[in-house]
């Protein structure tokens, strides 16, 4: 009946040492934390990329126009990836974001053109933007209910809503992109700049990312997201309302996809229905590149930002130095696989203890 007396594989002396020297541990806290973070290494990759392209073609790569373009083009993906970070940290997945983005852009555009037309003022535009957000939120809540309450695996749920949201968007538009979007929207939100310097798209994406990062890192909402992703049953037994929290996480992802739909509409001046089929994978890749574990429980918003910008920088840099476009896919794919390999290797190392 007796259990094995010793399951800790270390010799007694080593263990005694370990427990006798708390100062050593405390002193290296910051260092160990930094070294543990996957995102640090991927950040170095980004730095090296930027340096490499800057050295190769400084006038082109570091031109204000190019920097601004990289940020602007990454803005919508960044917003989507912020939501995706929460979902993946909670050990879920959201494949529907690209379709929800399209759906939100479509309902926003239809609302604006329906009540205002191309020359409409801000009233109809704001109403349209809100409708876009609500459209995204509605799909997010749908995902959340099906995942948290009906206990259908998120992969299946969001694969289903991926098709439903895109199909609904196509039903609404008859498959044709809505093109007569109000000029004000595209001129101000899409092309306008804060103080004439920073594009509004970038400002919005940065604010969303900072708020999303702070909430994830410092609040109870963020803590619960990590806890659920780490060990759902433990979270439940600790009294966390797991189902309700997951519902909120998917709703957040939907809401941010809705916001991205608004931004995309303003930027592209059309609904780009066919242009977002791989947004979900881009967002997942960015989050995972940034060191967030697909198994949940681990990840940072900083990592996600880095993960969004690595493909963006690679894409821009490769075009500028004149490399065949195929190389970009190879490079991003390789970095992604390496990032996941490191994550799994790390987990195995831990579980073997």
């Amino acid at each position, binding site marked *: 009946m*007796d259990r094995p007396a010793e399951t800790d594989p270390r010799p007694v002396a080593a263990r005694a040492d370990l427990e006798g020297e708390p100062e050593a541990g405390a002193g290296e806290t910051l260092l160990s934390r930094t070294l543990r973070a996957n995102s640090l290494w991927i950040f170095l990759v980004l730095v090296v990329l930027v340096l490499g392209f800057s050295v190769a073609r400084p006038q082109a790569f570091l031109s204000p126009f190019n920097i601004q373009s990289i940020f602007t083009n990454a803005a919508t993906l960044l917003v989507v990836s912020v939501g995706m970070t929460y979902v993946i940290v909670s050990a879920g997945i959201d494949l529907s974001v690209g379709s929800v983005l399209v759906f939100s852009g479509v309902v926003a555009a239809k609302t604006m053109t329906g009540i205002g037309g191309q020359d409409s003022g801000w009233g109809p535009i704001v109403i349209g933007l809100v409708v876009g957000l609500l459209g995204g939120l509605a799909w997010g809540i749908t995902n959340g209910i099906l995942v948290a309450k009906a206990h259908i695996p998120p992969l299946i749920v969001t694969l289903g809503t991926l098709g439903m949201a895109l199909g609904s968007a196509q039903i609404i538009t008859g498959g044709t992109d809505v093109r007569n979007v109000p000029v004000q929207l595209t001129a101000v939100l899409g092309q306008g700049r804060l103080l004439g310097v920073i594009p509004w798209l970038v400002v919005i994406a940065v604010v969303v990312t900072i708020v999303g990062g702070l909430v994830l890192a*410092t609040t109870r909402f963020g*803590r619960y997201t990590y806890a659920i992703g780490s*060990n759902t049953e433990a979270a439940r037994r600790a009294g966390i309302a797991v189902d309700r929290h997951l519902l909120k996480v998917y709703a957040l992802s939907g809401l941010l996809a809705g916001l991205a739909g608004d931004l995309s509409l303003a930027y592209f001046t059309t609904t780009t229905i066919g242009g977002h089929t791989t947004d979900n994978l881009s967002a997942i890749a960015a989050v995972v590149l940034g060191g967030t574990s697909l198994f949940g429980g681990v990840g940072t918003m900083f990592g996600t930002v880095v993960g969004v910008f690595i493909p963006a920088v690679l894409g821009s840099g490769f075009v500028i130095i004149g490399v065949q476009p195929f190389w970009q896919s190879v490079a991003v794919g390789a970095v992604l696989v390496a990032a996941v390999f490191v994550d799994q290797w790390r987990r195995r190392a831990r579980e073997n203890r």
Partner: protein
Amino acid sequence: MVEALLEARNVVKQYGTVRALQGTDFSAYAGTVTALIGDNGAGKSTLVKCLSGVAMPDGGEIFLDGQRILLDSPTSAQRLGIETVYQDLALAYDLDAAANLYLGRELRRPGLLGMLGVLDKAAMRNGGAGALANLGVRLPAADAPVGSLSGGQRQSIAVARAVAWASRVIFMDEPTAALGVVQRERVLEVIRRVRDSGVAVVLISHNMPEVLAVADRIEVLRLGRRVARFAAGDVDVEDLVGAMTGALEASALGANDVEANDVEAGAQTGGEGNTNGGNGR
């Protein structure tokens, strides 16, 4: 005679066609270590789940301090001061020790930030270090994820969490299973300390010498029923094993506590010989 702090009467729990608990009684007393023992499948874990709010019993009653209570979730048990160290530890392995100790009970910053849900990580880290120090546990790095710690350290954290929050009853399901000799002694020491603070400790263990070393009372489950109760001083390992396996008939057990029968007479189901035992004080 002291009244039981936590008392289960005639608890029934069924999983599909399997009756895990078939009208089980159980009592735990303040300031007392009660060992709950039984062979695999006797219903120990199920009983603990019912008494800690993880599972809802299908029948029977649970009393805390003589008041009938309803435990519909771990939270409602925790609110009543009932904590549990689960056999699987139930830790979030990616979070650090302090985050696990405060899981579900996070401290928030004062003022506006707190209202926005911002956590007071420093306070939790300090509190967590204190709770662990109480157990004599020192971690190599305060913010290391629990999953990177040794099995013994993880178990210590699970114990520390329950100890820190338990004000009335603490269930410990195999709390020393993953521990080395030194740490095991520490946990047993903690169990005694918690008992001395007036909390009712319920220890589930397969380790008979350990049970005899730390328990004041012993309750034995077999096939979903309580079949015997002992005062720890009166028994040896052989008696316990006999009661668990059914080799020792109820009639052969020392029938030396009439008062317990008196107290619990109303609750007895008239079932088979489950009236032995004592409060061991």
